[in-house]
């Protein structure tokens, strides 16, 4: 697939598909979300005009000479903790594909992603950093390195066959991890059989191992 993605391309994706992506994408996680979405700083370029794909990642990269950046390795971070930023990201910046790690909850897909025609993908492995790093064709630019630090900055990068990426939450209402979890949970209860609860409990303790903790 090539970014920016058409609505048709997004609709063609189904949970469980494995895809490769080329074209420009931008990184955003804690720093960028706070700076851009909460504190309202406008990005120094028209992001939506350039791409509709983002990755929740801070790359392994450095400034190798003044103004010249190189990425050696790349991996997304666990995306569930950014659920609260998704409405603003998708609605205001026209993002149609969020690449994270391990997906988000089905509620977020239903309430935020699907109404915006957006999909959630996951990097794989995890930790295929060298493979993903090699697919970085070039670093187009790095924005807000002083404000956010080099790792949390907004990196604009051009990818060449970036993958494998797992389609996690599609716009048809299917989630790959939700299905995998159902299967795993079937066997989990049996392992707990006969193992009694700790004699001294903890406040706020959740006793059912089959639930998601986010």
């Amino acid at each position, binding site marked *: 697939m090539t970014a920016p993605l058409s609505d048709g391309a997004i609709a063609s994706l189904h949970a*469980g598909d*494995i895809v490769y992506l080329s074209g420009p994408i931008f990184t955003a996680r*804690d720093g960028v979300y706070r700076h851009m979405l909460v504190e309202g700083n406008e990005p120094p370029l028209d992001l939506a005009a350039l791409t509709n794909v983002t990755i929740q*990642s*801070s*790359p*392994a*990269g*450095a400034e*190798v000479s003044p103004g010249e950046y*190189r*990425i*050696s*390795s*790349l*991996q*997304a*971070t*666990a995306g569930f903790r950014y659920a609260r930023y998704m409405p603003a990201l998708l609605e205001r910046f026209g993002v149609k594909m969020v690449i994270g*790690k*391990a*997906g988000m909850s089905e509620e977020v897909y239903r309430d935020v992603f699907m109404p915006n025609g957006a999909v959630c993908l996951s990097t*794989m*492995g*995890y*930790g*295929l*950093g*060298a*493979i*993903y*790093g*090699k697919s970085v064709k070039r670093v187009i630019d790095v924005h807000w390195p002083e404000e956010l*630090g*080099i*790792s*949390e900055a907004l990196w604009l990068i051009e990818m060449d066959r970036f993958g*494998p990426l797992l389609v996690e939450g599609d716009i048809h209402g299917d989630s*790959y*991890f939700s299905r*995998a*979890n159902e*299967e*795993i949970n079937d*066997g*989990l209860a049996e*392992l*707990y059989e*006969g*193992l*009694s*609860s*700790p*004699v*001294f409990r*903890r406040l706020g303790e959740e006793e059912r*191992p*089959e639930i*998601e*903790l986010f």
Partner: protein
Amino acid sequence: MVTSAHRIGLDAVSRAAYEANRLAAVVLPGEATNAFRDALERESKPMAQYVLGQILENADLAVAENRPMCGDTGLPRFYVKVGNEAAIEGGFVGFERECRRAVADITQDLQMRANRVHPLTRQNPGNNVGVFAPSIDYSFEPDADWVELTAVHKGGLFGSDYRMLFPADGIDGIKRFLLDTLSSSARRGLSCPPVVVGVGLGGTKDQAVRFSKEAACLRVIGDSHPDPDVAKLEDELMELANRTGFGVMGVGGDTTALDVNVEIAYTHTGGIPVAVSQFCLAYRRATARIHADGAIEYREDPRWFTPYYRREGIE
């Protein structure tokens, strides 16, 4: 009396610390490669097979192109074993300076991720060096004049936990705690399984946590604790971990743990402090032995848990 001719030079420390960190970031140790290959051979689920295959390809590519194997390059740290007869030019203050500088240098040269930030302001020095970072832990070894350093780049925001259990909870309590920890971290692969699980059992709370991390990061996959009761528990926990079925990436699979290592410390008669740490599939560590004459040997096995380190009684 150790003469100055036998002092380890700081240039050797510098080279060893730099190269051990490069090896850790880039080269998956052979024991892990073998464990992933075995896991792939055993695996029954197609998606898990595919992902394990990709992990092995990634390991090859990292070495071929000198790239960090994961984009999250972890938190570089050092475990240092000091021979009882060893002496260092500039002393251990000089040694630690070289270790800190090596982390900054390799961060820039390999374009590792600048992961270390101030916990409140999030200010990033850009080189993985800061307050108490990298951490440097020491142990000692009798009848040796070398110094060894093991660079560990452990990743992961998920999968470590501690709990005070009681003798009434017994081994079942430990098993349940492991299941709880895996259920909350291997689901969706948050802790990046297949992992090497380290269990710290006994001691005090801080010791349990510390030994769980050392057990995860500094043992060798497939080895056993010399205490047969502990070794038996390792086997049982390993079987349990893999019966959870989370598998690589949490997609469902036969291998969630490549190994489970338990370390024990004598503890309060009323309690069983237990801690779990998980070394993710980016199983990153490398050891350098610096001899008194300045020669450096690199190897994969940290040889951290020596009989002296685990000693008991009064000598």
